[in-house]
């Protein structure tokens, strides 16, 4: 059973790599190198901070772009080409197929982040900024955030068109980063009902800010191991929830 899912994952990984994904990494590298070279004379007194900020921000941004652009089209492509019908005639269930797709894109994201991280460290060294081990925590949490978004895009692509799936995923990203503000807003509004409603919404929608430690890492704030552990568990639980939902929808879907 696992082997069947693994085969789909491996195939998805190969397919996404061929999908010019590494061109994006190259663009990322060029932008990063270009920005640090161009910006360094302007960044008086804060060169290291700005190079690190731009690097970590670009990693998250390009990762998000890859998830949205590749993830939203992944299922539609196979449905259009009818290759999905061939795959499902093999001993692969729909849930295994979906899990394979998820794992394949996650592997692509991981390899992309590894390449980006190496480039980032090289640029830090060029700019004479000592790369602190704390940066590893930022890379790891960015990966977790992208994994969660990957599960979301897969869920959306099971029931809407690729364009809508991409839009929904971007909304998911925005809402995920604003959920804390939403709860604060509810508390400012004052009434008990409003506080309760915003609290419920806050716990139902994902809080992607827990994965955003980029600023803290750049400023050298300590990152606790318990934060990393809890964020990992949160990502695991939420991803599992989204994949179960995606599986339930996809297994009932008529494949045309």
């Amino acid at each position, binding site marked *: 059973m696992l082997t069947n899912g693994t085969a789909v994952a491996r195939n998805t990984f190969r397919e996404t790599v061929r999908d010019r994904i590494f061109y994006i990494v190259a663009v990322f590298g060029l932008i990063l190198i270009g920005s640090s070279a161009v910006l360094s004379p302007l*960044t*008086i007194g*804060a060169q290291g901070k700005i190079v690190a*900020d731009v690097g970590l*921000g670009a990693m998250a941004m390009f990762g998000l772009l890859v998830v949205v652009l590749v993830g939203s089209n992944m299922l539609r492509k196979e449905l259009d080409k009818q290759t999905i019908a061939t795959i499902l005639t093999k001993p692969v269930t729909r849930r295994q197929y979906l899990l394979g797709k998820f794992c394949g894109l996650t592997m692509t994201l991981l390899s992309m982040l590894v390449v980006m991280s190496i480039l980032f460290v090289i640029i830090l060294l060029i700019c004479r900024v000592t790369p602190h081990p704390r940066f590893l925590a930022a890379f790891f949490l960015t990966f977790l955030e992208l994994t969660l978004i990957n599960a979301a895009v897969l869920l959306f692509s099971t029931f809407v068109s690729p364009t809508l799936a991409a839009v929904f995923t971007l909304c998911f990203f925005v809402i995920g*980063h604003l959920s804390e503000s939403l709860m604060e807003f509810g508390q400012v509004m004052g009434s008990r009902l409003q506080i309760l409603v915003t609290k419920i919404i806050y716990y139902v929608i994902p809080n992607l*800010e827990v994965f*955003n430690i980029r600023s803290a890492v*750049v400023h050298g704030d300590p990152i606790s191991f318990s934060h990393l552990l809890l964020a990992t568990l949160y990502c695991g639980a939420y991803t599992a929830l989204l994949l179960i939902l995606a599986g339930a929808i996809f297994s009932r879907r008529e494949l045309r």
Partner: protein
Amino acid sequence: MVRGRWRGWKLWTLWGRAITSILLVLLLMGTCVGLLRALENMTSSSAENEKLYFPSGYFLREATVGFRSVVADYLWFQTIQYYGSYRQGEHDLRYFQGLVDGVVQLDPHFIEAYYFGSLVASVDQQAIPYAVDLLKRGILANPDRWLLPFHIGFLYYVLEPDYERAALWFHLATQSPDANDFVRRFAAFARKKAGNLEGSIVLWQHLYDTTSNPAMKELAERMITHCEESLRQHESNPDSGGL
């Protein structure tokens, strides 16, 4: 013969097309450059007023989901450029405080922004209350950094001057875990020799030696010259008062 003439005609049309295309591209390029220059001339007069419409840091905090630090860096560039154009005499820095507030609202740990912002506000705008308030906000967000309380002491010492308060803030700076020897030495010096011009020169000299920011270096150089002149005047006429 006919074939040769046909080939020649074909070659000519090919070359003709290529030359026409190149000329067309150059013409369009020239038009674009001309139009852009005309637009630049039109907008340069209102460029300063653009800052008036800059959204507040509180709005940007919510709008820049997940990328606050990067936007803070962008705003920091704008601030530096804005200060640069002030030094060239283009405006009177009226939106400087709004820009600095935006930077620190987006990234409350951006020490350089508090430091530079308070220095420019106090020296170039004589807005010492704003500078102190900015630094106090910085201390709230970064209680472990000696630079911010030390800099409040610095402002009280060299610009206000209020030596008692300055000594208090210098003492507070020595309590920070990252306080260095200079801070401790200066806090002791300020307690003993409050109000002396050499103290101001030492402070400006320390700023000059430690900053990598050319604008701050230039500002410190200006103030050292000013203090030295005052010192000379004071020595030649001791009744003329302090700084």
